[in-house]
C-alpha cells in the first residue's frame, strides 16, 4: 500500500515537471536598446549634401541593382526600400575542416557527417531608409543588412544581423559613386 502511494507521488512529481517544462517562456529583453547601438548606427548612416531625396532613392535602387538585389517593397513617401538577394555561402576552409573530420572519424571506425552541416546558401536582406536630416538641409541614408544561412541539408544554420564594417563601407562607397554618376547622367 505504502509503495503504491510512493509511486503515485513519483508519478505526480514527474507529471508536474513535464507540465512546467511545457510552459517555457519566450526570452525577454530583445526589444531593449543595446549599449553599443550608437556604434552600429554610425556604421549604417551617411549624410549627403542634398535636399533631393528622390535623387538619393533612385541612386540607392541603382546600387542595389548593381549588387544584384531584388527590390521587394518600397514606400517612397517614407523613403523605404526593402530588398533581398540569394547568394552562395560555401566557405572553402569550413568544408575542408569538415571533410577532414569526416575522414578522421571514418579512419577511427566511427561515423561523422560534418560536411552536411557546412554552409551552402544564404539570403541577404537589405533595407534602406532615406530621410531628411534634423535641420532639413541634408539627406540621411541608413542601411541595415541581415542574413539567413542554410547548410548542405537545406536546414537554416544561422540567422544574424550583419555587423561587418567593411560591408557597410563598400555599400556607401558604391552609393557615393552612383549619386555622382546619376548627377552626371551616366
Amino acid at each position, binding site marked *: 500500500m505504502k509503495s503504491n502511494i510512493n509511486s503515485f507521488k513519483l508519478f505526480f512529481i514527474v507529471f508536474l515537471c513535464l507540465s512546467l517544462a511545457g510552459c517555457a*517562456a*519566450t*526570452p*525577454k*529583453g*530583445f*526589444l*531593449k*536598446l*543595446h549599449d553599443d*547601438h550608437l556604434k*552600429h*548606427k554610425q556604421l*549604417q548612416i551617411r549624410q549627403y549634401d542634398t535636399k533631393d531625396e528622390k535623387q538619393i532613392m533612385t541612386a540607392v535602387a541603382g546600387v542595389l541593382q548593381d549588387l544584384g538585389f531584388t527590390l*521587394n*517593397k518600397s*514606400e517612397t*513617401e*517614407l523613403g*523605404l526600400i*526593402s530588398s533581398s538577394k540569394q547568394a552562395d555561402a560555401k566557405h572553402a576552409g569550413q568544408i575542408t575542416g569538415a571533410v577532414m573530420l569526416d575522414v578522421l572519424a571514418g579512419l577511427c571506425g566511427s561515423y561523422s557527417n560534418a560536411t552536411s552541416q557546412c554552409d551552402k546558401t544564404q539570403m541577404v*536582406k*537589405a*533595407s534602406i*531608409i532615406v*530621410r531628411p536630416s534634423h535641420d532639413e538641409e541634408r539627406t540621411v541614408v*541608413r542601411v*541595415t*543588412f*541581415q*542574413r*539567413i544561412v542554410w547548410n548542405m541539408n537545406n536546414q*537554416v544554420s*544561422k*540567422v*544574424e*544581423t550583419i555587423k561587418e564594417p567593411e560591408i557597410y563601407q563598400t555599400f556607401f562607397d558604391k552609393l557615393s559613386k552612383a549619386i555622382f554618376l546619376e548627377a552626371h547622367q551616366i
Partner: protein
Amino acid sequence: MKNVRMLGNVFIVLCLIFVASGCATTANKAFEMNESQVKLRSIQTRVFDMTDKKKLMQAVISTMQDLDFVLDDADILLGSVTGSKYIGYAVITMTVTVRPRGETQLLVRANAQHGIVSVEDPGTYQDFFVALEKSLFLTAHQVD
C-alpha cells in the same frame, strides 16, 4: 473476471480519449490569446502628444533600426511599419501601427512575435516604447 472487465473499460476510455483528441483541429491554436483583449491592447499601445504622423513613423523606423530590425514593409496611409530581427536561430517579427487619436494625439500600437509565439509580456513592449520615447524626446502615455 472483474479485473478483466475493469481493464476492458479502461481500454475503451483510453481509446475514446485518443479518438476525441484526434478530431481536434489545430487551426484554433493560431487564434488563442493568453491575455484578455483589453489588457493586450493596453500592453501594446501608447499615446503621444503629437500630430505629425510621418515624423512619428520615421521615429518608429529609426527605433526599430536601432533595435537591429530590418524593415520589410511600410505604408504611410495605414501607418504601418513591419520589420524582422534575427537572433541566433530565432526570428522576431514586429508590426507597429500609427494612427490619429482625436485632434491632438497619435496612437502607437506594436505587436511582436518571437518564433511561433506571440509576445504578450508587458516589459518587452515597455522596452520598445522607452526606446521610442528616447528617439522622439517625448513621453508616451498609457491609454486611459
